[in-house]
């Protein structure tokens, strides 16, 4: 089943190219016009940009140096003679950098790509020959990601994906890297399904659906990144000081600093410092991630451009769109903000290395605005004026029961341990019961309040979540099946959980703990005809809704 590998010898034009092409706009292209077909595209194998070798060299050197510094400090502080340690480390850095540079040079030298009328292909031909080939009509995403180093050279990575759920070999390929202008050109070429009607470059760049409003930055500190970054900062200090062998002196130093104050002040001070770092961190992260954020629609493709240091330009074909998810995350919900996630087929559930999900279309913004953008994205407004129906009270009872079980469960474990081991745990047990019970019940009530569902035009709307609240609008045509689940407890309470399965995102959206009648009706109405043949009337005895 291995695809035929084209001749492995480098293309004659590839070897004779001007090494300075990295700086020219169309450097990756052969200058010969006869090799192009009428769509303006060359069928010849082309090289990636050579400057990738420099970029990798600098990255490797930076990394090696970063490892070497704590290494040297550690040994020198440990009493080793500075000279030899320095020499060895320097040698290591040079060796590592050289290896990385060589490896990337080999990769660059033996990698070619081409775009033909039918396919996009990337081949690597040295020892291990690989060919990745994607039919052009399967291409669903062309994403451009450029880290600061690549940007220095005017380069960008291009990820070309088919939007398949399966993480198969042939589902995506990455051109790492090409010149920026070439990347933009590739995207236009690959995502523009319309048969090139003249090469008049006239991308239908409508007005932006959303651009960054700097006032949104006020929502950054209330996100979960603040506590995470705050805690991580202390961890990082401890870790680094451990590497360079000064952990004890750091602890000593902090101890001395607060020698004359009480433990309460010390803890408070540490918390304040942590919060401050978290605040700065989350603000910084927001700036890095959403700098020059712009959501546009071009030729039926949604485009998100953003990023300060690493620039990202993510594409999403409108026809892959199955809905939106307006997420009021725990913190932002309290201040009336929500972010907009997209519900679309072929999204990887988690993107590798990127800090945010690729599915986030818009950072936290005032709810009304988030909903407006969601509506603009869908070109319909299912969330406006939809009647979101609450679920039966039995659903609330279930949630309160879970809450009580959870709270008492923890208390009971503590109590049992307390009886066996020490009375301190007994006190902890009643404190836990006292504190956890109201918290758990509050969460349960919130969970119940958020439960709801409705139909709005072409969309099924389901709302759920405790703490964070999700309001999902899923296009009815995107529902590719139903799953109805019922536990013994739900059966007694007359509830079911209905899942609309879809090719988008995680594969299903749940309407949890809905009344059986209402749930079945909802499913029947949402996708007419699908469920109807499998329903049967029941005798009058059951309670009509």
């Amino acid at each position: 089943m291995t695809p035929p590998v084209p001749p492995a010898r480098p293309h004659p034009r590839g070897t004779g190219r001007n090494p300075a092409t990295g700086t020219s706009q169309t450097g990756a292209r052969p200058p010969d016009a006869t090799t192009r077909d009428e769509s303006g595209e060359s069928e010849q194998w082309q090289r990636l940009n050579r400057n990738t070798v420099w970029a990798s060299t600098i990255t490797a050197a930076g990394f090696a140096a970063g490892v070497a510094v704590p290494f040297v400090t550690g040994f020198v502080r440990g009493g080793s003679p500075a000279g030899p340690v320095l020499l060895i480390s320097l040698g290591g850095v040079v060796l590592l950098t050289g290896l990385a540079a060589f490896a990337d040079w080999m990769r660059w030298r033996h990698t070619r790509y081409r775009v033909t009328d039918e396919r996009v292909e990337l081949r690597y031909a040295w020892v291990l020959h690989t060919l990745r080939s994607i039919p052009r009509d399967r291409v669903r995403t062309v994403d451009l990601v450029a880290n600061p180093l690549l940007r220095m050279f005017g380069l960008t990575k291009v990820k070309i994906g088919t939007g398949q759920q399966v993480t198969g070999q042939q589902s995506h390929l990455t051109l790492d890297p090409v010149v920026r202008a070439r990347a933009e050109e590739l995207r236009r070429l690959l995502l523009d399904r319309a048969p090139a009607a003249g090469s008049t470059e006239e991308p239908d760049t409508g007005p932006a659906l959303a651009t960054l409003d700097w006032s949104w930055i006020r929502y950054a500190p209330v996100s979960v990144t603040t506590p995470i970054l705050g805690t991580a900062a202390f961890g990082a200090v401890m870790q680094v000081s451990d590497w360079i062998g000064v952990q004890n002196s750091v602890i000593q130093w902090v101890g001395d600093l607060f020698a004359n104050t009480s433990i309460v002040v010390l803890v408070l001070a540490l918390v304040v410092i942590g919060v401050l770092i978290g605040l700065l961190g989350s603000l910084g992260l927001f700036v890095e991630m959403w700098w020059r954020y712009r959501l546009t629609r071009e030729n039926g493709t949604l485009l998100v451009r953003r990023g300060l240091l690493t620039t990202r330009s993510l594409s999403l074909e409108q026809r892959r769109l199955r809905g939106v998810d307006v997420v009021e995350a725990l913190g932002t919900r309290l201040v009336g903000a929500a972010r907009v996630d997209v519900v679309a087929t072929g999204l990887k559930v988690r993107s590798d290395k990127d800090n945010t999900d690729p599915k986030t279309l818009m950072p936290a913004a005032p709810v009304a605005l988030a909903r407006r953008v969601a509506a603009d994205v869908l070109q319909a407004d299912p969330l406006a004026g939809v009647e979101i129906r609450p679920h039966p009270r039995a659903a609330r009872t279930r949630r309160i029961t879970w809450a009580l079980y959870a709270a008492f469960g923890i208390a009971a474990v503590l109590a049992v341990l307390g009886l066996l081991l020490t009375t301190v745990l007994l006190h902890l047990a009643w404190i836990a019961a006292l504190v956890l019970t109201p918290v758990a019940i509050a969460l349960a009530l919130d969970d119940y309040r958020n439960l709801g569902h409705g139909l709005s035009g072409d969309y099924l709307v389901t709302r759920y979540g405790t703490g964070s609240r999700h309001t999902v609008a899923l296009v009815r045509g995107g529902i590719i099946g139903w799953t109805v689940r019922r536990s013994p407890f739900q059966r007694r309470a007359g509830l079911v959980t209905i899942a609309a399965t879809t090719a988008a995102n995680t594969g299903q959206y749940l309407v949890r703990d809905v009344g059986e009648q209402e749930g079945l009706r909802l499913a029947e109405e949402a996708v007419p005809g699908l469920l109807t043949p499998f329903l049967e009337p029941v005798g009058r005895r059951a309670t009509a809704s």
Partner: protein
Amino acid sequence: MNEVVRLRPPRNRVERRAVTYWLTNELATVAVPTVILAVLALLIGPARPWLLLSMGIVLVVGLPYAVGVPFWRYRVHRWEVTEDAVYTRSGWLWQEWRIAPMSRIQTVDTARGPLEQLFRLSSVTVTTASAAGPLKIQGLDHELAADLVERLTETTQAHRGDAT
């Protein structure tokens, strides 16, 4: 509109042999730890009471499950293929009804484990584009399963598009 409805059971039961298959399967699952614990109890004198206690627990919990659940499952597991959809019911205490329209089916496969082969049984897996998992019909006669796969493949090929 206001009459009370419920999901009707799918028309077809699975093979009666499936009960025997499930029984064998579950009993084997219980037998393995039981035998191991018994052997250990025989060999290791000092820990014998604890090992026997563990064995007892495994038997008390496992045996009723292994004997009871296959019959229960047989009553619940049902399937049906219409012109337009595949409809299944599975589970025992926790039950699940699943419906996949023909137009959204991507692949249809059969699978037969060694034990299933012994009972001439197959399971049919119907995959859609959803990442939430395929529909599975367990405990079909293997010839019936082969026919079913052929029929489903034919029907789904008639539908165009990428089923998303």
